């Protein structure tokens, strides 16, 4: 009975995947028809075959490597800062009900405004180089991480804490064996959200004001009217983002117990 249900679920999942693949294929087909048959200007919409050729060329020559290094370096630095700051501050705030009442709504409010609007300010303070992208990415991803850390530590079952105390758990062991594992699933969900918006805001800000990076490369190609190559870079960035998000989601799933 259980096996039957599992195999049915597998078949359902497979069918969904086929529909998704079909949808993407239809989009590419429409794109192809629009570019070749319906006379859409090549400067607005290049032929997907040309885009594919450029993509192969980009991958073969490895010309993307410098820009990829810049973008991933910015992402790594920004995410390290926001994880360290968000988890530490979130934990400290979660220890005081008063601090939770003050900071939780404040962070939630700030999280809901588009911080990317402050990009000009970040550029003025940190320049056109990676520093402004790192600062912006860290600032934006700090909030979901801090909010989820507060929520994770703030909702630990009191009975588990009492039980651990009754068995003589020290502060350190209480944190290591009870508070942290209890809060971890919620914190990891926050890290995943933080990672995603850090990536989005870094690439986005590279397209607006920067000297290097994948976003910068795409805008540079657009200004040079090299549309097929620009589209090829967009596809490349989408693939990189999809891989990174899949890795982060897999790591999040591994840390779950509930």
């Amino acid at each position, binding site marked *: 009975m259980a096996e039957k249900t599992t195999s049915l679920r597998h078949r359902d999942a497979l069918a969904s995947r086929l529909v998704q693949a079909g949808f993407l294929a239809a989009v590419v087909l429409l794109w192809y028809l629009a570019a070749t048959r319906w006379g859409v200007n090549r400067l607005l919409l290049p032929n997907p075959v040309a885009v594919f050729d450029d993509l192969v060329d980009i991958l073969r020559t490895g010309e993307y490597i410098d820009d990829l290094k810049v973008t991933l370096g910015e992402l790594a630095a920004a995410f390290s800062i926001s994880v360290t700051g968000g988890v530490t501050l979130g934990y400290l705030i979660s220890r005081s009900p008063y601090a939770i009442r003050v900071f939780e709504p404040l962070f939630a409010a700030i999280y809901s405004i588009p911080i990317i609007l402050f990009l000009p300010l970040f550029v003025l303070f940190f320049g056109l180089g990676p520093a402004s992208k790192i600062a912006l990415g860290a600032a934006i991803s700090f909030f979901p991480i801090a909010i989820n850390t507060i929520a994770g530590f703030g909702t630990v079952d009191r009975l588990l804490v009492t039980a651990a105390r*009754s068995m003589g758990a020290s502060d350190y062991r209480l944190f290591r064996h009870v508070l942290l594992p209890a809060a971890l699933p919620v914190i990891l969900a926050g890290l995943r959200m933080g990672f995603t918006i850090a990536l989005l805001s870094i690439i986005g800000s590279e397209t607006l004001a920067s000297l290097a990076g994948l976003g910068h490369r795409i805008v540079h190609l657009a200004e040079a009217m090299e549309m097929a190559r620009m589209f090829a870079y967009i596809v490349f960035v989408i693939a990189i983002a999809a891989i990174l998000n899949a890795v982060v989601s897999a790591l999040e799933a591994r840390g779950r117990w509930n």
Partner: protein
Amino acid sequence: MGDGMATAAAAIRVRGVSHRFGEEGEQRFVRALADTSLDVARGELMCLIGPSGCGKSTLLNVIGGLMAPSSGGVEVLGKAVAGPLPHDIAFVFQESALFPWNTVIENIELGMTFQGVAKAARAERAGRALEAVGLGEFAQHYPAQLSGGMRQRAALARALSLETPILLMDEPFGALDEQTRMILGEDLSVLLARSGRTIVFVTHSLGEAVFLADRVAVFSARPGTVKQVIAVDEPHPRKPEFVTSTKFTALRNQLYGLLHDEIRKAVLGLGEAARGEAGPA
């Protein structure tokens, strides 16, 4: 002098313990316990029974050092209680309080880690405790994969592995169905007859109290205090047939008689609470 002899043998001495939640005049103000005194002898199983909200769980937390009383004090094995005593007292709570991210065996070993047991000794002691409660085959299961009764067995195994002279059990079978409860009660009686531990066991069930206890302390309605202590003169381990004996029925009826008025008072008290005159349960 006779009183002095009795207290010398006592594992737990509760002296004039009162406890209130909140401050007088506040909406949440509750007088949970009023001037409660009680001795629990070494190796004795004492059941605390009383109407809801009579403070019996509060008393258990005070004995275990999880809660400081508003006044009065508790001595455990001759020491004044000022905080948790992990080497003297182990708890079993109403919900299992197992860590859901750890397997059963990890839960038991973690308890010993908290208590400070050397790493080399943990695995062997954990295995022995699991066998004792009949969960040997479920060592690698997570709590969510077990039934409610099995979770309580695992929680009991964790408490037993700590090898404390005293066990405090707060309605450990309260959330279980009647049949599971009966079986766990029988197994507990067998297990404890061998262990020589001192046990305080909070329960709502008259039958459970008579079946398990050497003595039953009956609490009055809130603010609770010990109204009367009844001895159950029957050797451990108790046989299932004990339940059908006239002695069992007589003791159960006696407890019912003592509790009936208190429960009625408590229920009327809850009625007042609904009209906003008293605090939460």
